[in-house]
């Protein structure tokens, strides 16, 4: 934190955080953001190499899977869906935080969002890209994936829009396009800024991406309007995506999937895991790119609070669902609950519960929220818990059904794990490369935020004031 800044010494620290970088010139800020982007150390390339290798291995595993058949993964009858769908749900869940932070907080005019919006939006886009791979990966005949796309053909065959998988595809593509545009819109002024400060290939790249942005008032006006529209428009999409993902399960009559609470439960879970992932990533990026100046305790504090609230909401929804299932005492559900509480699913169940509930408790402490390492630990734990939760829902439920003769178990394989790891590595790789090409901190938003606040002396008091900017 910039307590050392002599110019700010007079202001009480809690205000100081709002008066972001007051003493610095705009050009300084530009440099502070651009420098970590332009100077890449050896550590970065080592990281990229490792991630690249993991992705390459995962692609090989995918090739193996396609060549030999889905049997190369650990699926069997009746566990037709396993880690692929689990990870799919997980990534879709992660993708929710970007919009949550960016659009919802933008509408709510929560100013602390400003330095972290870009990171959040990028996370959304990349997580969706990873999620979008899974519907392909898990297909038995991936080379026929285009049959899911409605296009005129002489066989007069169309996809079945009754199928939740079609809803999924539509929702995910819409969300991917929407969130990518949203990310890009907010990027334009910073591209222009970067264009003005760089040369070589970067200059050409930024010039193209900046779309000739000059920063006129008209342009700003249009940008704000566009962002405003997008912020509103993308919220229903972001709600729909995870609802639809939940309906993949809930529309079947598989016991435990067939639940009315699934849609909100999934959305809340998605926000919980997404915000946690964002917090984890911010902690990591902040350290990796030395952005301590921009990403500060107040952001972590606020984000931590959000995570905690989402966690409480998730707990509530989980409990509401669980209680009804428990009292319903439907035979298969009862069996599943028994397996979770004291059967072969118990390790996963207790991992899920502890990893999801302990962080809620931890994050109640400001010390945890504002200490990056502790925050990282808590939020990582949340995502372990949420991944486990999805695994329990997808894999756990499918192991039991109405005919005990057909129950089954499941063991994963190296192919499956490699592909899952591939998407994690792929996400990290995209994110790492992104952070070197695009200003990680939205400079214009910070500058805009600075304009909003000023310190006024009223009598003997220094009082921060905020202006409406629209």
């Amino acid at each position, binding site marked *: 934190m910039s307590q050392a800044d002599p110019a700010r010494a007079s202001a009480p620290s809690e205000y100081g955080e709002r008066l972001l970088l007051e003493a610095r010139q705009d050009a300084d800020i530009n440099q502070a953001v651009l420098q970590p982007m332009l100077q890449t150390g050896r550590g970065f390339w080592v990281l990229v190499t490792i991630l690249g290798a993991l992705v390459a291995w995962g692609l090989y595993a995918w090739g193996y899977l396609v060549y030999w058949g889905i049997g190369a993964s650990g699926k069997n009858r009746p566990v037709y869906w396993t880690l692929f769908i689990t990870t799919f749900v997980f990534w879709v869940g992660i993708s929710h935080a970007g919009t949550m932070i960016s659009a919802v907080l933008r509408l709510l005019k929560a100013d602390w969002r400003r330095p972290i919006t870009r990171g959040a939006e990028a996370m959304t886009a990349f997580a969706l890209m990873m999620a979008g791979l899974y519907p392909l990966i898990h297909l038995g005949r991936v080379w026929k994936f285009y049959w899911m796309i409605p296009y005129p053909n002489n066989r007069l065959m169309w*996809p079945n829009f009754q199928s939740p998988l079609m809803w999924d595809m539509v929702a995910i593509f819409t969300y991917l396009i929407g969130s990518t545009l949203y990310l890009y819109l907010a990027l334009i002024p910073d591209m222009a800024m970067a264009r003005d400060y760089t040369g070589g290939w970067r200059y050409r790249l930024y010039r193209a991406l900046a779309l000739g942005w000059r920063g006129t008032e008209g342009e700003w006006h249009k940008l704000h309007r566009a962002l405003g529209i997008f912020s509103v428009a993308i919220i229903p999409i972001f709600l729909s995506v995870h609802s639809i993902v939940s309906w993949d399960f809930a529309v079947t009559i598989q016991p435990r999937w067939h639940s009315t609470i699934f849609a909100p439960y999934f959305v809340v879970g998605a926000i919980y895991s997404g915000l946690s992932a964002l917090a984890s990533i911010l902690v990591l990026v902040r350290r990796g790119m030395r952005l301590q100046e921009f990403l500060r305790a107040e952001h972590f504090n606020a984000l931590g609070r959000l995570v905690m609230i989402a966690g409480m909401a998730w707990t509530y929804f989980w409990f509401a669902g669980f209680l009804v299932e428990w009292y319903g005492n439907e035979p298969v559900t009862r069996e599943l609950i028994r397996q979770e509480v004291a059967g072969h699913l118990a390790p996963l169940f207790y991992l899920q519960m502890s990893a999801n509930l302990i962080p809620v408790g931890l994050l109640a402490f400001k010390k945890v929220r504002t200490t990056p390492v502790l925050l990282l630990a808590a939020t990582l734990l949340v995502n372990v818990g949420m991944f486990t939760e999805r695994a329990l829902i997808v894999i756990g439920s499918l192991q039991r059904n109405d005919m005990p003769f057909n129950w089954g178990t499941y063991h994963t394989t190296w192919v499956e794990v490699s592909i899952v790891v591939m998407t994690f590595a792929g996400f990290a790789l995209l994110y790492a490369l992104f952070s070197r090409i695009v200003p990680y901190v939205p400079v214009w938003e910070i500058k805009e935020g600075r304009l909003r606040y000023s310190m006024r002396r009223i009598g003997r008091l220094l009082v921060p004031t905020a202006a409406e900017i629209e």
Partner: protein
Amino acid sequence: MAQDVKSSAEASPRWAMVVDLDRCTGCQACVIACHAENNIPVVGEEQAAYGRWMHWIIIQRYWEGEYPNVKARLMPVMCQQCTQAPCEPVCPVFATYHNPEGLNAQIYNRCIGTRFCGSACPYKVRTFNWFEPEFPAPLTEQLNPDVTVRSRGIMEKCTFCIQRIRRAEMDVKAEGRQLADGQVQPACVQTCPPSALVFGDLNDPNSQASQLARSHRSFRLLDELGTDPAVIYLKGGETNVPG
């Protein structure tokens, strides 16, 4: 009105199978008949142990009671050809759909392998080609030319031997006659030694299947789910009664 019913019944039969559990001995003849008729591959010990077997019809065995008053109930289970089939709406490409005769169609060459139908099916009677099926030569010579050999990544299931239905329809049409009751027999029904399986048209009230379906012993599997299956079971007797 009655005329209408009759003509519509003639227009499209409602194929149904009656499984008399009192006759079924569990002898597995139907299982092999199905393998032979429908080009179902064998998967080998390792895969079979992992639950990846591919029989379209299985005989489920449930134990009841304890030694010495132990009962084993045997129940053949194949695709129930539900009228309200949970598998149908979830397929994104219409590979499985309801055909005019009320059959659950599974079109292999349309299937892209999402396995959604398999997850949705409460009876778990759909099987998936986890790997490319193997028929070491010259076992290929026994393959039924009327049935597609499925490749890897495709869902498959009991079709009520649609190829036999179509063949019979074609033959009677060529001869200018109507299908008679019992003229269409899926492979399992044809071979069943104790005649526990009966196949026929429910729209024909006089067919043997219709008559059996009206038996007081009849019930349907997981009826409470409302899937309205076309497979009708007839309750078996009490076996190994104590005392």
